[in-house]
């Protein structure tokens, strides 16, 4: 309940222990209301803490996935590589993709969505705080479960697309694919739960005055993503269940001998898989649509167009899945339909690039690291989008699909589109989240090495692919390498060297975090308004208080914060903006007018307990049914505990007020 009481006229009365009631007699299961220590993280329902945990975990998996990529490129640096066996190589590219998509980009976007959406819409938390905690823990345990396959017989080896029937037990006898299917099933639950939560948050919890068309653009894009997740995850859930039953319980969904058609898997996978692409990039589109206006000192150009093009992508994204299957023998009419639909989706995507460019046009551009990453996204994503148009042309895609040209394309889209945007977001919001800005000096090293590294790594893959090198080959051979300028040997080597440059770029990011946060760091706290920001999340302290806003803000305009700071004193068509207030003054004003009673959701044990049951059930599916029963028992107990838990913490859950000289972190907050 963490009720924050405002100063009252009367002094607090002498403490009397509250009477024990039916709902407060939990004993050891007293609400974990600590505000410090590990308990304050493990049982938190604060969207900000959950967001930070999402981010830390995602960056950890980014490094894991990067190491996997490094091994892949090391193997392919020369012909007939011997760094990895065929088996390990196949596991490596499967797990690289799986890790990067499901354990890095998606949760990193979830980190931003979790942290920023309530702040951007002027809310105190998300709609279902305990569900939010559940999402994170389910994701974390799912990711760990997935990666335990490395020490339990090897990772999945069927490619992240896991085409049937190659994913069936005769072709993949280790448990890797089981870990993959069950692990994604678990992380999928996290995404679904999170999606419902954030959709309700966006639709129901906006501050007074914030109509949908005043909602900050990042929140808009994140909301579109949650809708995509809501409809896409069930499809992959079905597909994964089919696969799990195929492999573990002798089902025949993909058994050709029993009359099944293996293309069923492809359709299910890509009906999920293509919206997934937009799930991956739209959050970053949202991020740079925040960053570009701030550092251009202009509103986002064509905000409604960006919103509607994002929503349009969200719809049309459902009608293009079969462009991953142009070579799979669908028949010319289907291919034609999906080919044209794929070209159509280039239009709303192009609209975004145009709007970002026009946002900068006529602006007052400041090239901070965040801005560099945002501009980097525009450039790199444009290239990825254009190569995408070349293989929306189905006949030429039959030459390009499953070659390195596609690898080049989607890395320009995902690394150039999603990852650069996530880094832009990190540099932009770091002072908001941690109270200290990352170093701009290290940030520029970070940016330039990453951008050069990514072009060295993925640029040559265009050449390699057009020269006919297929993907997913653990070795390439001199016999098929050619000799001229475009020979595979040289460009494979360049790509591998590029990986090192890219890795050094990421290392600079780590150095930057260390330099900023190491014990004894002399970097001062960031000012409240380091970037002259425009949206609501900046209208509070950095880092924000647990309750986000002292007073629920009332919104009058898009870019609310800008309009509170600046006034247009120009006449007619002449504009002249004068700063009327600083953010420090505005925040101080909010503090003076703080709301008297602030209700915050109470922490809970049950989300982490419920999440913990899922990997146990999954191990049970692979190894022994007893574990399924054990996991199910924990799950049921956790659900009962959750359901019976009072909505707010009882007063008895808190410690009595501390005597002078003692300390407690469970004290009822009194101001």
């Amino acid at each position, binding site marked *: 309940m963490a009720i924050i009481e405002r100063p009252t006229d009367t002094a607090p009365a002498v403490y009397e222990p509250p009477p024990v009631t039916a709902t407060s007699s939990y004993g050891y299961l007293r609400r974990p209301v600590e505000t410090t220590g590990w308990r304050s993280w493990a049982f938190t329902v604060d969207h900000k803490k959950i967001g930070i945990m999402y981010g830390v975990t995602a960056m950890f998996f980014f490094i894991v996935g990067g190491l996997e990529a490094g091994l892949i490129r090391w193997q392919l640096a020369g012909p007939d590589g011997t760094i990895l066996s*065929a088996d390990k190589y*196949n596991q490596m590219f499967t797990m690289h993709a799986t890790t990067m998509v499901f354990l890095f980009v998606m949760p990193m976007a979830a980190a931003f969505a979790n942290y920023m959406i309530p702040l951007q819409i002027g809310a105190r938390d998300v709609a279902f705080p305990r569900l939010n905690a559940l999402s994170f823990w389910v994701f974390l345990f799912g990711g760990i479960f997935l990666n335990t396959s490395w020490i339990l017989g090897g990772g999945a*080896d069927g490619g992240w697309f896991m*085409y049937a*029937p*190659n994913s069936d*037990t005769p072709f993949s*006898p280790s448990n890797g694919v089981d870990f993959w299917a069950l692990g994604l099933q678990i992380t999928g639950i996290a995404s679904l739960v999170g999606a419902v939560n954030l959709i309700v948050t966006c639709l129901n919890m906006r501050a007074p005055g914030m109509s949908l068309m005043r909602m900050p653009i990042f929140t808009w894009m994140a909301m579109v993503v949650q809708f995509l997740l809501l409809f896409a995850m069930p499809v992959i859930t079905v597909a994964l269940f089919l696969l799990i039953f195929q492999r573990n319980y002798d089902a025949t969904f993909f058994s050709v001998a029993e009359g*099944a058609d*293996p293309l069923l898997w492809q359709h299910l996978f890509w009906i999920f898989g293509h919206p997934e692409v937009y799930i991956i990039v739209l959050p970053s589109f949202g991020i740079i649509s925040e960053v570009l206006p701030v550092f251009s*000192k*202009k*509103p*986002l150009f*064509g*905000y409604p*167009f960006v919103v509607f093009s994002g929503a349009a992508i969200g719809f049309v994204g459902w009608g293009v899945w079969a462009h991953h299957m142009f*070579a*799979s*023998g669908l028949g010319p009419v289907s291919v*034609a339909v999906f080919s*044209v639909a794929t070209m*159509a989706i280039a239009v709303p995507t*192009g*609209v975004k*690039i*145009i*709007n970002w460019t026009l946002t*900068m*046009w*006529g602006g*007052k551009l400041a090239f901070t690291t965040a801005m560099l990453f945002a501009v980097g996204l*525009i*450039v790199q994503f*444009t290239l990825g989008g*254009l190569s995408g*148009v*070349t293989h929306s*042309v189905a006949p*030429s*895609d*039959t*030459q*390009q699909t499953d*070659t390195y040209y596609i690898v080049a394309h989607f890395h320009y889209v995902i690394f150039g589109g999603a990852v650069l945007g996530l880094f832009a977001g990190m540099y932009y919001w770091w002072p908001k989240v941690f109270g200290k800005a990352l170093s701009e000096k290290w940030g520029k090293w970070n940016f330039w090495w990453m951008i050069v590294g990514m*072009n060295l790594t993925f640029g040559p893959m265009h*050449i390699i692919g057009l020269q*006919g090198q*297929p993907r997913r*080959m*653990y070795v390439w051979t001199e*016999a*098929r*390498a*050619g000799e*001229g*300028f*475009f020979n595979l040997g040289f460009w494979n080597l360049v790509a591998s060297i590029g990986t090192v440059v890219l890795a050094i770029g990421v290392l600079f990011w780590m150095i930057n975090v260390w330099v900023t946060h190491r014990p004894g760091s002399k970097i001062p706290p960031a000012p409240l308004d380091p970037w002259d920001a425009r949206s609501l999340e900046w209208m509070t302290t950095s880092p924000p208080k647990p309750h986000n806003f002292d007073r629920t803000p009332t919104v009058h305009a898009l870019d609310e914060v800008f309009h509170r700071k600046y006034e247009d004193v120009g006449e007619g068509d002449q*504009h002249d*903006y004068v700063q009327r207030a600083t953010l420090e003054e505005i925040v101080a004003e909010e503090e003076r007018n703080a709301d008297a009673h602030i209700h915050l959701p109470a922490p809970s044990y049950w989300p982490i307990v419920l999440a913990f049951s899922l990997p146990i059930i999954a191990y049970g599916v692979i190894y022994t049914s007893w574990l399924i029963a054990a996991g199910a028992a924990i799950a049921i107990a956790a659900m009962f505990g959750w359901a019976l838990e009072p909505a707010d913490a009882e007063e008895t859950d808190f410690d009595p007020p501390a005597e002078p000289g003692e300390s407690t972190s469970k004290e009822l907050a009194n101001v």
Partner: protein
Amino acid sequence: MTATPRRRWSRAALARRTGLVAAVGLLAAGCAQNAPQDTWDPAGENAQKIHDLQWPVFTVAGIVGVIVLSVVGFAIWKFRDRGQPIPEQTHGKPKLEIALTILPALILIGVAIPTVGTLMALNETDDTECIVNVTGQQWWWEFDYPVQDGCGGIDEPIITSGQMVIPADTNVLIRGTSRDVIHSFWIPRLNGKRDMVPGRVHTLRMQANEPGIYAGQCAEFCGLSHANMRMEVAALNDADFEAWKANQLEDYESPAEGTLAAEGEQTFITNCARCHQVDGLRDSDGQLVVSRPDNQVFSGAAPNLTNLMTRNTFAGATWDLITQERRDQVWEADPDEFGDLYLAGVEDEWFNEVDLREWLRNSPAKKPMYADPTRLEETDGLVRGMPYLALSEAQIDQLLAYLLERK
């Protein structure tokens, strides 16, 4: 940061990165030394149709890229903070945006129309002059020529693997499927790829303008040795193709008595013939030896070795049966000389026995195939690919001598 490096970066971006795609295309098209799977070097009318579609699209994409990035680069340079006042807080110009939405839509309509036309043309099957059945399995391709009036007339089925021989300047229709997982048939210089899916038959047009050899590779990830699943198409002129057909259907000849090859025949029957068919082979009782790979191998098939030495490669077209020098001659032959070089097959003087010997010694070590005998419970005891046979060096010598006569 000063203005200069940033400006250089944006222009470099135009020149290097956006122009890359177009540059690759233009240069690749004219460069003879490129990789044999160059997708920008069509050698048949189907690949040509694709190429006629793709190079304009790449060019348009390149131009659009240059324009967009020029505008971005200009904006970065022009509007950087030089202390100018806070700009007008404009939220957009709907007319401009609608125009800029319609423009790419128009370009894409221009791309869509020829795309659909080419697509339909590439799926035409009415003009077929020759049919070849293609079957993928882990990790090699089998080609069989059914009895037909096409291909100049085939009276008895021909079965081969690794290298598909077709008549040049003839519309060949491939009918393909798979015996296990999904594979993808792809000869870049002749056509795009088509997945070969178990339980389905997919067709793909194939036509080579001139005699020659065209490289290909399985393009759909198909398990452990996906990288070692290649194929080649040898196109022969009509006369040479007739000669090839006749050679394929020649009666079996046992090796001369007392030769190493004759010992090899017995070794073959004992060690190889359970999976590998040699048509016409008879055991010491005079019984025809019929292979039953379906009792041994999970995919149910093993390459037919009746005419192994008419092919230049083995084990999924991954290793050469001919020396490097000979290989270069075959691959770089003029169209009118190619037929003779190819039909000569493998002769003692250019026989590359190193790779075949290593293969017979321990094939799973050369090509990963899950032939681990301890992990066969999921496949009911069937191996995948060729298992380790524990042959002695003497047996290998015999087999090499025997196989060298299979042509």
